[in-house]
């Protein structure tokens, strides 16, 4: 028995920084899941995953992440993807806000 396909987005990590990115409809990788393309159809999703995988010079590990369409765009359904989508850990980070890499890393891909 086949299961219904859950709407999904394509989620990956940026090769240079490792930061989470999602595939948008115009083939660009965006740092905000709200701007990701929602894939409703399984066959289309497979084609989009092929596109994503071909972009291995920019991203690592493209994979489907199930979402629920919401008023502000796709909402991740798994705890894992929710944490990724918030752009960092759910806790305040220690450390020196002025350190060099922090500033550099904050420039999203």
């Amino acid at each position: 028995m086949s299961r219904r396909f859950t709407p999904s987005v394509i989620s990956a990590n940026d090769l240079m920084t490792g930061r989470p990115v999602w595939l948008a409809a115009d083939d660009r990788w965006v740092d905000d899941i709200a701007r990701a393309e929602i894939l409703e159809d399984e066959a289309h999703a497979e084609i989009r995953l092929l596109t994503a995988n071909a972009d291995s010079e920019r991203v690592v590990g493209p994979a489907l992440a199930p979402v629920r369409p919401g008023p502000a765009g796709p909402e991740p359904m798994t705890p894992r993807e929710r944490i990724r989508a918030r752009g960092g850990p759910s806790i305040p980070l220690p450390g020196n806000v002025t350190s060099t890499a922090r500033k550099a890393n904050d420039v999203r891909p």
Partner: protein
Amino acid sequence: MYVHDEFDAAYVRERVRQFRDQVERRLSGALTEEEFRPFRLMNGLYLQLHAYMLRVAIPYGTLSARQMRQLAMIADRWDRGYGHFTTRQNIQFNWPALGDVPDILEALAEVGLHAIQTSGNTIRNVTADHFAGAARDEIEDPRPWAELIRQWSTDHPEFQFLPRKFKIAITGSPNDRAVTRAHDIGLRMVAGPDGATGFEVIVGGGLGRSPMIGKVLRDFVGGADLLPYLEAVVAAWNLVGRRDNKYKARIKFTVHELGLDAFRDLVEAEFARRRPSFEGADQALLARIRTQFAPPDLVSMPTEPFDRAMATDPAFRAWVATNVTPHRRDDHAIVTASLKPHGGNPGDATTEQMSVLADLAEAHSHDELRVSHQQNIILPHVPKGALPAVFARLQAAGLGTGNAGLASDIIACPGLDYCGLATARSIPVAQAISLRLRPIEAEVGPLQIKISGCINACGHHHVGDIGILGLDRAGVENYQFTLGGRADERARLGERMGPGFAFDEVPAAVERMVRAYLALRRDPSETFADAVERLGTGPFKAALYETRQDADAA
């Protein structure tokens, strides 16, 4: 302390050069991710949820002030101003950019550190008692042996593609502070029949999805036989270990499936074959290593400042009671600097804190620091007279929390806030529990709470007095309890309680069990662990589940 010799230095630099080239080829597109991934893992570079993570080996948890300063510099220059100390006495940087990693590795090499064999199916960083060389109950400092094992296992050609990762822990004390029974091999130093040093060899311990307590493979292996015997154990497993199933590949399954006696026969056959080829070079090397671990020249200074602070400063007195351990010499002490501020992230230290620890090590602890598997930092050789000054500096840096061994001294894995394998968050659970129990933790006394964010059990939850395992139940975090585990020389797996709790329910659930203990204990000298041993888990389980509705309403 061991300092890299020319051979070590050349080897590490060559590895950095190779990795720099591999990164360049990955970035230029000459290597695919599939090709590159094994190379980055060989150099401790993981990809997690939000970024790359670099795991740096801290051999047997020992650091010099200079090394700690370099870690601080790396955190500041290439990361976000902090690092995370782990249960395997390593440090992890959570935000390096791929292109910077070769420079980071070069900076590590400058101070004799590296990230080799911190990942992959190899022999990992050897861990040791964090009080080694300072403890009162110690037979002998185990670290020269640990260093010998490090040199033997690093780049060992036979052991680069093991069935699975392999972890060794070593202690020189009868009181086990290194969790030797939860390692692939645990080594407990014992005095042999003729007084010579040897080891009890424990095999097949490990936590993870199928936790097992290690079994004694041999009561006594003499020092001269140690390396050939270790080699025989790893070689025997390397041949018969389950390469068909990564979930059954660790040595604990080999021992379990074959039976201890049958596995011992394989080991003894290997040992007989290999022993003759060890002709004494290892013992000559050990003798050279030993000279670098000569006990520090402890200074004598008046203990008067200590006596005065004990008499007049209750905060100092409370801190001494928990965070200061007797040293083998009466006028010295072992200090635990807490990386567990109430409500903080267990094991994290900022650049500034690392610098303060380096300064204190230089000024008061013979240039030495240790990372404990409990994710704190140890100053092993502090003259008692310097303790008030050390406490003041630690307090000012947020490192002076007097909670070592108490309820808020929680081991927690990074969990779903960082880790790609995690199924639930660990850190905020630890934060909430530590804040909740803070008012009663002094009254409660020794209590080990350990939290893992998935069944791989990096947070050692099976061996906590109270263990907490975070799972994903249909998209919602859910936390299961185990009770009555022990991590010491009487190591034991905790007993699993019933249904799990929601994220918000966990702190109150823990408190109910702790309050049950306060009500049930014979007197304050009976610890939580002792009470569970005497009463069984029943009364605590009853407390855990008795008032779920009340807890929900609270």
